[in-house]
């Protein structure tokens, strides 16, 4: 059994004749994902040049750009610091109740940022709940939660699970026999981690980090609550200026440029990615023994879960307890909301997983420029605020979304298909990233062996590669599922009339100031997301 990381044969990735069918398929997916953005160009081109120029050159533009970049870097770094140690803790140590903690740590991803930010602001605002607790002990002023720093911390607390989930999956798939080997060669644990583990999980960390960075610049709710002046806030103020969508589109294009830059940078830094090994075994099950440190370790997990999950629910429930308003009947909870949420999210997850497959496979296996371009292109929709994607699809759906089939006319506008398409455009990079990382961890020699034994390309994929990457594909689909469950702006724009989901009910209650009525749908959103995580993690655990 060879115990070496394979680095010597990048040829095996490009050696095949260029797979034309796969390239075309992948290109078609990328084109479909980028297509709604043509609306941005089209809309932005109708802005008044002088006014647009005035917006770009004013000094605050530099400030806003600086703030957006600071937010992005801050959130990414903070998320890394939270997620990577927790991934190691829950995979490589003997922490008790491992599965429970895994779910607790991954679950903040399911909480919409507007709920999390609202709860944090209620708790930590000047004269808020926490200050009320501390006043008896003489603390009369807390450091202000408002501003860029507050937004950075809160967004990080709800997006670090991207890195946690991808890193955890990579740690589980990793060939631990390498770690055993390093340990026998007298490396200490930390040294082994840096020299052996880290290089293997680095692409997974980078894939998660990219999602965190792009999410940070596209989030609107949290910066708005925390009065942080970043790009999305400008886009929304412009959107709210009654001038149509021109300037919002114009500013969004600038965001696309920033995104393209980030994607290019990440491409550079992720470096050599041949991370598979030749061995099939997964080594010994040697988990780090925590001893007494398991108590503080569990304490940290519990604290994080309390702050991100329990506190928001308690705050909403406390509103429910004091609420006196007679609300319309439509605010009464119905299980239809749950079913609607689950079913559109499930639909979007399956579509995203299927569409991501060719893109991710091509990019991982064939080191061609086109493959990489296609893969990067699918990421752009993730950094564009949902309302902008939504309006683009409103335009296309209302004006070109009607198809005549002889006697029957089918309209896709304000229907489930166009809604699901919007979700896929926004969230497919989560699937692409996760699937691509999984493909990278499969040794292409396995494919070659299968081909030598007479399998066709498709048969090889189906019988050899797919079973190996399935956990990665499922993890990616799960991410899409969780984020779709909480998506709001595109849902409001494109849903069929009367189609109510958990988030549309949360929104209706919250925008009416009836926070208590947001409590139950929010609680159920968390429970359903938690259950889906249980199912997913069960598949993944070995």
């Amino acid at each position, binding site marked *: 059994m060879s115990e070496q990381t394979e680095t010597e044969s990048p040829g095996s990735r490009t050696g095949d004749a260029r797979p034309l069918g796969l390239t075309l398929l992948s290109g078609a997916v990328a084109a479909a994902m980028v297509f709604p953005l043509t609306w941005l160009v089209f809309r932005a081109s109708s802005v008044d040049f002088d006014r647009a120029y005035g917006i770009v050159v004013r000094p*605050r533009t530099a400030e806003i750009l600086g703030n957006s970049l600071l937010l992005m870097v801050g959130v990414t770094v903070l998320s890394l610091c939270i997620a990577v140690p927790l991934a190691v803790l829950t995979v490589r140590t003997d922490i008790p109740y491992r599965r429970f903690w895994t779910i607790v740590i991954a679950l903040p991803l399911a909480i919409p940022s507007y709920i999390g930010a609202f709860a944090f602001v209620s708790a930590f605002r000047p004269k808020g709940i926490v200050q009320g607790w501390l006043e008896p002990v003489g603390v009369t002023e807390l450091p202000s939660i408002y501003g860029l720093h507050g937004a950075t911390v809160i967004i990080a607390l709800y997006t670090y699970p991207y890195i946690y989930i991808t890193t955890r999956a990579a740690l589980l798939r990793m060939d631990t026999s390498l770690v055993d080997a390093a340990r026998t060669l007298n490396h200490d644990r930390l040294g082994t981690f840096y020299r052996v583990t880290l290089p293997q999980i680095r692409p997974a960390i980078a894939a998660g980090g990219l999602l965190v960075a792009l999410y940070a610049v596209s989030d609107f709710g949290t910066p708005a609550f925390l009065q942080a002046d970043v790009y999305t806030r400008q886009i929304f103020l412009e959107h*709210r*200026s*009654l001038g149509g969508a021109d300037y919002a589109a114009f500013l969004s294009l600038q965001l696309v440029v920033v995104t393209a830059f980030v994607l290019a940078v990440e491409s550079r830094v992720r470096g050599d990615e041949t991370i598979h090994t030749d061995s099939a075994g997964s080594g010994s099950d040697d988990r780090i023994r925590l001893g007494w440190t398991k108590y503080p370790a569990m304490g940290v997990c519990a604290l994080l879960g309390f702050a991100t999950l329990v506190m928001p629910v308690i705050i909403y429930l406390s509103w429910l307890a004091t609420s006196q308003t007679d609300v319309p009947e439509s605010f009464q909870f119905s299980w239809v909301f749950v079913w609607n949420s689950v079913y559109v999210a499930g639909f979007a997850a399956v579509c995203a997983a299927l569409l991501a497959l060719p893109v991710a496979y091509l990019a991982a296996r064939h080191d061609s420029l086109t493959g990489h371009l296609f893969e990067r292109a699918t990421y752009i929709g993730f950094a564009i605020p949902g309302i902008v994607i939504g309006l683009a699809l409103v335009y296309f759906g*209302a004006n070109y979304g*009607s198809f005549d089939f002889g006697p029957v006319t089918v309209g896709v506008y304000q229907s489930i298909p166009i809604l699901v398409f919007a979700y896929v455009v926004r969230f497919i990079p989560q699937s692409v990233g996760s699937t691509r990382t999984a493909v990278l961890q499969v040794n292409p020699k396995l494919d070659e062996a299968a081909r030598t034994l007479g399998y066709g390309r498709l048969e090889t994929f189906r019988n050899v590669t797919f079973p190996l990457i399935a956990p990665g594909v499922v993890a990616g689909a799960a991410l899409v599922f969780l984020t779709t469950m909480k998506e709001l702006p595109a849902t*409001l724009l494109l849903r069929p009339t009367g189609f109510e989901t958990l988030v549309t009910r949360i929104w209706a209650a919250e*925008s009416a100031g009836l926070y208590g009525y947001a409590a139950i749908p929010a609680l159920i959103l968390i429970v359903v997301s938690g259950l889906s995580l249980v199912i997913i993690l069960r598949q993944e655990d070995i």
Partner: protein
Amino acid sequence: MERDNDGPIPVRLPIDRRRFLAATGTAIGAAGFAGCLSDDDGDGDGDDGNGDGGNGDDGNGADGNGDSDGTEYADITPEGTSWEDLPDLEGSLTIYSGRKESQIEPVLRDIEEYYDGLELDIRFDDNETHLSTILEEGQNSPADIFYTQDSGTLGALAREGRTSSLPDDVIETVPESWRDTDGTWTGVSGRVRCIAYNTDTWDPEDLPDDIFAYADDERFEDDMGWRVDSGSYLSWVRALMIEHGEEFTREYLTDMEDAGVTHYEGGSTTPNAIAAGEVGVGFVNHYYVGRVMDDQPDAPINVTYTDGDLGSLFNVSGTAVLDSSDEQELARNFIRHLLGSEGQQFFVETNREYAVIPGVEYDHEDVPQLEEINYPEFDLNQLADIEPAVDLLREVGIR
């Protein structure tokens, strides 16, 4: 800097003049035509109301709605017309509502349930998102009626040429400054900007009744908040510019910035911040506060009004029929229902808003009656072009 401490006293005001005129002018309307409701009305109205772009000579005069088969219905009048006397509604309407579901759905559903053959598809979202949506949809918009929280959004839609004419009786019933002068949109309920304050930290007697006094009164430094992301705030700033000029408004906004006013986003955020004691004073629409007071009766928050300046600007929520709708007559009749007695009564009783017709009783004490507020005369039609306000706010750094 001491201010006279008499605060905003309830004053009886000049508004009564216009309401009086409105009330007497067309008083002879309704009574005689309380026609029995024939069941084939609704969309059978044929030619009598569909002339886009021109109203006035379409047979809907002050003498009732002539139906093609001779059945006559009552007009909308300032003293109130019962739904019973209005044309039947039959068919299906799509309404884009920028008003909140919690506030407006009950009255819309009341109308729907009042008729067997009426079906309403209501989509809720923000005013501005709906406006953008309609503009993106173009002539293919499924919407028949656009229902907004403030007049600015309707003015913007009218400016894009996307609204169609309303019938004469509607135009004659609603005071001119609360509707489109061209008669393509109308206010259906009113709200007043107010000073909301935390009752633990402020006595109403200590609050100036001059909106501009807050900007350079040291007592309010770092203790004020307002919502900056709404169409109604934009309308308000635009109103300041029209009334007092750009230079004055710039100075005022800059002074407010220097005084450390907090910029909130989202409808109830400012009232909540005041109730929580984060800031002591905020400048908002009265019904947002009414909502918090309703929902959380123990919250230490109340409202007061400035005296005769734009600090108590009266604005309307309103409706328009889209030019692209193929249910023009049904949509107009629906708006008549909102302006009818039961509709107007709902706004007053349930929503704590103000009626746009005089013939409605106010029998609650939560918010002052409109007569008690000295709100300035202001023609809301001037607020259609909002862009100068956007640019000014950007210039002073609020946006």
